């Protein structure tokens, strides 16, 4: 389990207690957080679960796969060095307290 905090572009902040193995995208869509769409269902195929990860903790996450890096080229909002796709990050206890910011638009 890990508590993950999602901060939407509006400033709205929501903390969700996520079961191990759930992706950060699933945690958002199952808990009514509107800033993540996840249109493809979590198969790294739509780039609508774009998020900005807490810069200080980027190094704690498993590196993005080639597929994720390629899909990140399709995000609608500005791509930054800390851009990730939330469907590709799985909750583990090590992510406790992680904060992610959501962009203004996903498509």
């Amino acid at each position: 389990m890990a508590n993950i905090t999602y901060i939407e572009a509006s400033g709205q902040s929501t903390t969700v207690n996520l079961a191990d193995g759930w992706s950060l995208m699933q945690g958002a869509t199952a808990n009514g957080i509107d800033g993540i769409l996840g249109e493809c269902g979590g198969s790294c195929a739509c780039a609508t679960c774009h998020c900005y990860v807490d810069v200080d903790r980027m190094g704690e996450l498993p590196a993005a796969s080639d597929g994720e890096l390629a899909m990140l080229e399709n995000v609608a909002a500005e791509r930054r060095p800390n851009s990730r796709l939330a469907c590709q990050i799985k909750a583990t206890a090590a992510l406790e307290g992680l904060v992610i910011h959501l962009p203004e638009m996903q498509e």
Partner: protein
Amino acid sequence: MFSFDPYSPAVDADPFPYYKYLRDEAPCFWSPEAQMWVLSRYADIVSAGQDWQTYSSASGNLMTELPGRAGATLGSSDPPKHDRLRGLIQHAFMKRNLLALEEPIRAIAQQVFGQLNGAKQFDFKEVSSQFTVKVLMAALGLPMGEEAIVDEQTVRDNAVLMVQSDARTRAKGPEHIAAYNWMQDYASKVIAMRRANPRNDLISNFALAEIDGDRLDDREVLLTTTTLIMAGVESMGGFMMMFAYNLATFGDARRAVVANPALLPDAIEESLRFNTSAQRFRRRLMQDVTIHGQTMKAGDFVCLAYGSGNRDERQYPNPDAYDITRKPRGHLGFGGGVHACLGTAIARLAVKIAFEEFHKVVPEYHRVADQLPWMPSSTFRSPLVLELAV
């Protein structure tokens, strides 16, 4: 004593009371008839769908698997093989790459649904099947018009048959295997045509694709193409039947989307949650898993009952109401995780356009029959016939 037999015609007709019992009383249930475990709660299905290392698809994902298919398609393989196949195909199915298909799809919808002008009663399947086959042929680049090698209805008939199963033997019958073989034969002819004279279409690109210098093996190309045709025709057609069924049943919802077609996307999402055609898929355990007091052993098959997770009151309040204002985020109507449906964007686009055009011709309709004949299938659920009257 409670039983859950996914081959039973009673489950084909109405699985939802069974699902409720499963979720409440037996959330990890062994079905002797299906010879597999059944997970029915939303949270358990999401967790399992996400954990492909434990819940493997490589022994097949259809509840009743087709011979020789497991391991050779997207849905029936695990990463990294899955990712390599998917990487070749998914680009074509991304939302922004489908824009070019919007006008052709609308032209198909206008032609097909235009036939209903003046009709007083009709079987919705007649129009939905014409529409889905034509859209799929356009999307995949299957030979059409002068180039066509089979008639469209035959493609549809075989796609629908190959996903069915026999309620008595709880297996594929000879007619289902024959349909599967027909589809493979058709796919192999199309692949040969495109290899001989490649065009800029999905199957040409796929048939000639190389990954790290290796061409895909012929079985992967053949069975993945076969599955794309099956999924495109049967799943999209089945979903359209379910959407029409819901709008014909719930008059307030239909009147709302007819008056304001901008509500169609929300109504489509709610249909995907409420009674998606892809009700159940299976996985196979790679290690022992203990959940809800039961221990499932490595090697056991597990059914992920998406249709039940979508009705789980633990996730969706008042789950048995069809409510087009619900906006059911995170629903399992397209599955989830690495194996979530490849065709989500084209399905949403095509169904929206279809119903926009259908409602221009037939804005008011209702079901003729109270009881419907349901497709015999352990995996999918949709009516075989849907008579509508204006």
